[in-house]
């Protein structure tokens, strides 16, 4: 399967990983400037935490994207979990920091968090089912 077919097959997965790479990269490079919500809610340590968050988010996005296109689940799943953490962290801090002004960003990132968790759980569930079948057959 070429990359076009994979993109057609995983439009949302690709875009979520792409957004994680861009947002994480910005966080990694410019720190707390990337989100007012984070600056407000993490008063004091915002800059360090924003850099760490950016690193985690970028690594997750890159792993997920590579795993998705190289068809390597062992790389895709950890990337998916790291993206989940990144979106969850952003969702909670932006709503805490900006209150109602953070609701739009918080809702979107919260939905993406749930989506990533569901996808990771689905893959892990299938892997467990396959290993159970394989174990019985052996």
């Amino acid at each position, binding site marked *: 399967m070429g990359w076009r077919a994979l993109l057609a097959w995983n439009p949302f997965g690709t875009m979520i990983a792409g957004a994680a790479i861009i947002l994480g990269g910005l966080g990694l490079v410019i720190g707390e400037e990337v989100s007012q919500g984070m600056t407000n809610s993490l008063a004091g340590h915002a800059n360090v935490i924003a850099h760490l968050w950016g690193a985690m988010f970028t690594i997750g996005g890159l792993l997920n994207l590579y795993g998705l296109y190289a068809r390597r*689940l062992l790389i895709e799943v950890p*990337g998916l*979990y*790291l993206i*989940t953490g990144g979106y*969850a*962290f952003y969702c909670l801090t932006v709503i805490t920091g900006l209150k109602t002004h953070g609701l739009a960003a918080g809702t979107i990132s919260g939905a993406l968090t749930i989506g990533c968790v569901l996808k*990771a759980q689905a893959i*892990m569930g299938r892997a467990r089912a396959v290993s159970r079948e394989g174990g019985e057959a052996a």
Partner: protein
Amino acid sequence: MNTTDIIVSIAQVAAGGTIVQAMVAVFRRRGELRQLERQNESVAVDTADQLVGMLRRELVESKQELADVKQDRENLQRQVGSLSEHVSKVSADLAVARADISRMRDTAS
């Protein structure tokens, strides 16, 4: 400790938890994920094999059809040849018969 602190610590725990989950996936579920990867690959290979087999069958069938059509055309050409031979023979007979008729008329008159 106010609500903000609590939510921020929840966020940190969530982020940390997913890092742990990622490590669990890599270190403890490695075998299962590998197996699923292999199965996905074998499914893809099976599908490709089936597709190739189907195309090959179609190719063989259409070659057979082509051969049949060629055979039919040859038969028809042969028929056309024999029919035109027949027509020329008949028209030669006709000319002979006409000549005979005109000769008979001449002798009668």
